[in-house]
């Protein structure tokens, strides 16, 4: 990122790294001594590496792939990735509210069981009164009312079960779509992983040189992805290899000033170490 012809190299010794990262990500401008500058959208390098501070966790392969993307490099998997993404965007399973249908069926079943018990109880009472030669008129009336309720509830329960069956049928069709979506997502994940491995391999020699060029401990092996040492060193080397859209936010104590850091990393820099 350049302001006019000048690369951003800013020291903010008293700033909080997290606050600077927030500002870099925000739609707001970044305030620092000397002015405010509109920043482009942060890219994957920023997402993975900023702020560069002790304790940072870096997947070297993924970070290096992000560096490759920041330079506009493409992977052989890109066409297929775009194709799978397009296919994926067309797979859109509809929500099926099976929960409501399940609840309705369960509640109707409970009501029916309750009423069924009540009818049996009233029937017993009618019989008992008749057997004892007592007037059963009242009890018979209540029995008939409860039996009517029971018939109605049974109809409701059957309707609820039919609805549940239909809902399950629909859910099953939608699950075919969900399964297809999952397969596409897995395919996309594999392609993206392959693309990252490819891009990391393309930049690996540059990365090894960069590890030697930036300050700090670290050694990159011959095989892409093999790195031993302080992750901060790896992050700095990735910034040096990449072409970051927004400044590297450095809180790692590796540089005496922002100018030097920007020179070594060949990248815009905000240095927040006092």
């Amino acid at each position, binding site marked *: 990122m350049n302001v006019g012809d000048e690369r951003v190299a800013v020291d903010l010794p008293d700033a909080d790294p997290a606050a600077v990262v927030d500002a870099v990500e925000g739609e707001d401008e970044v305030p620092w001594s000397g002015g405010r500058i509109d920043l482009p959208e942060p890219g994957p390098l920023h997402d993975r590496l900023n702020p560069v501070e002790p304790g940072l966790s870096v997947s070297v392969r993924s970070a290096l792939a992000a560096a490759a993307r920041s330079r506009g490099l493409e992977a052989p998997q890109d066409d297929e990735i775009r194709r799978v993404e397009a296919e994926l965007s067309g797979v859109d*399973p509809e*929500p099926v509210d099976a929960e409501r249908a399940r609840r309705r069926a369960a509640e109707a079943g409970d009501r029916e069981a309750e009423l069924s018990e009540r009818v049996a109880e009233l029937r017993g009472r009618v019989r008992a009164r008749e057997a004892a030669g007592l007037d059963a008129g009242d009890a018979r009336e209540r029995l008939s009312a409860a039996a009517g309720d029971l018939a109605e509830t049974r109809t409701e329960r059957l309707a609820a079960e039919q609805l549940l069956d239909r809902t399950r049928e629909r859910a099953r069709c939608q699950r075919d779509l969900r399964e297809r979506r*999952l397969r596409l*997502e897995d395919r996309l994940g594999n392609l993206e992983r392959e693309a990252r491995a490819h891009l990391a391999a393309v930049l690996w020699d540059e990365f090894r040189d960069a590890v030697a060029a930036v300050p700090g401990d670290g050694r990159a092996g011959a095989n892409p992805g093999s790195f031993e040492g302080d992750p901060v060193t790896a992050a700095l080397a990735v910034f040096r290899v990449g072409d970051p859209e927004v400044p590297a936010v450095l809180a790692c104590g590796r540089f005496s000033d922002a100018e030097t850091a920007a020179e070594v990393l060949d990248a815009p820099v905000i240095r927040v170490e006092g």
Partner: protein
Amino acid sequence: MLLVVTYSRTARQTLRNVCSAHGDTVVRRFGRAALFEATEFGAFLALRMRERHGEDVQVERTEPLNEYRDTPESVREAARAYEEEAHDNTPYAKFASGTDHPDPDSMRAESI
């Protein structure tokens, strides 16, 4: 038992986590599905997954099949005969035609 099937990457990951954290309740795991014990705790684990992932989690209740209780003898006999008597590449429909064994469509039409 409770059959829990997942339909998204995040739901599958949650299932993995649940399976490794609650091995005593997980009877068996198959890729993106698993069988949980039919206990309140098994149901609790399944329902929590459904809360988190909605319809990307399917929960079914399974029961063992007792063929002597749940299927007619004609079906059991057909299965035995097909396995023992048919050549490996004979389709069942062809094997059954002209015999007393039930044809596949009639079996499809009968629920058990």
